[in-house]
């Protein structure tokens, strides 16, 4: 075992001036400033504008809340990867999925990934990706959080 040198303070010494830790301020969220990604998010609003095309039992299947959750998931991956690795994520196609869900679909030269954001708040998102060969990724994830497995896949060249 090795130890680095340093002064040791006696915490029982009343003369010792104690200093408190700086209060932890919540980090400012990093804005998603990737222009292409923002443009795709803007284009995805068409899903809501054309929602009368997908009416089921008199109710549109696609809601602003679901689209917002899809965008929040996307930005969580984008912001974290930019913060930790300085990387911009590839831009997915944001489109209508089955039964009011939203699809985030990346189709790249060497890999493909589909993340399906559910229409209900308490449901897990499902995903599948492969490299057009034997390497595959798939399962269920929390759509409200950054996911390291998805991030690793998005960083694949």
């Amino acid at each position, binding site marked *: 075992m090795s130890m680095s040198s340093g002064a040791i303070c006696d915490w029982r010494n009343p003369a010792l001036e104690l200093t408190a830790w700086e209060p932890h301020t919540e980090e400012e969220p990093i804005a998603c400033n990737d222009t292409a990604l923002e443009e795709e998010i803007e284009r995805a609003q068409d899903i809501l504008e*054309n929602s*009368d*095309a*997908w*009416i089921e039992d008199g109710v549109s299947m696609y809601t602003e809340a679901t689209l917002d959750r899809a965008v929040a998931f996307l930005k969580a991956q984008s912001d974290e990867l930019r913060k930790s690795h300085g990387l911009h994520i590839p831009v997915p196609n944001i*489109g*209508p*999925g*089955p*039964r009011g*869900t939203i*699809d985030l*679909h990346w189709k790249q030269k060497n890999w*493909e990934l*589909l*993340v*399906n954001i*559910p229409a209900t708040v308490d*449901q897990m998102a*499902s*995903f*599948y*990706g*492969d490299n057009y060969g034997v390497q595959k990724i*798939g*399962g*269920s994830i929390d759509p409200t959080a950054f996911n390291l497995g998805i991030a690793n896949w998005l960083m694949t060249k």
Partner: protein
Amino acid sequence: MTGAFDPHNGGTSVDWDKYSTPEQTRARAKRPELNAVVRMGVGEIRGVDDALDVIHRPLPDNQAHSEIPLPDEGPAQSELRVKLTRIAVVVIPLSA
């Protein structure tokens, strides 16, 4: 295009081109102008995955109606939808 496959009640609806042209298929959509039509070979669909099949299930107003059994949700559905898009060929594009 992954959203083209919209499974519910255990399957996604398709038309058999023996009984329907691409134009007729598109015309059956609620908003035809917002829909494209893709073509997939039955043999190709069955070759994509052991879980995939195509079954002719005619409806009173649509003799061409058929179904590809797909899970209603979950990772398996996502996987099969990705694989189906790879064999789908657009015959009527969006906004055509």
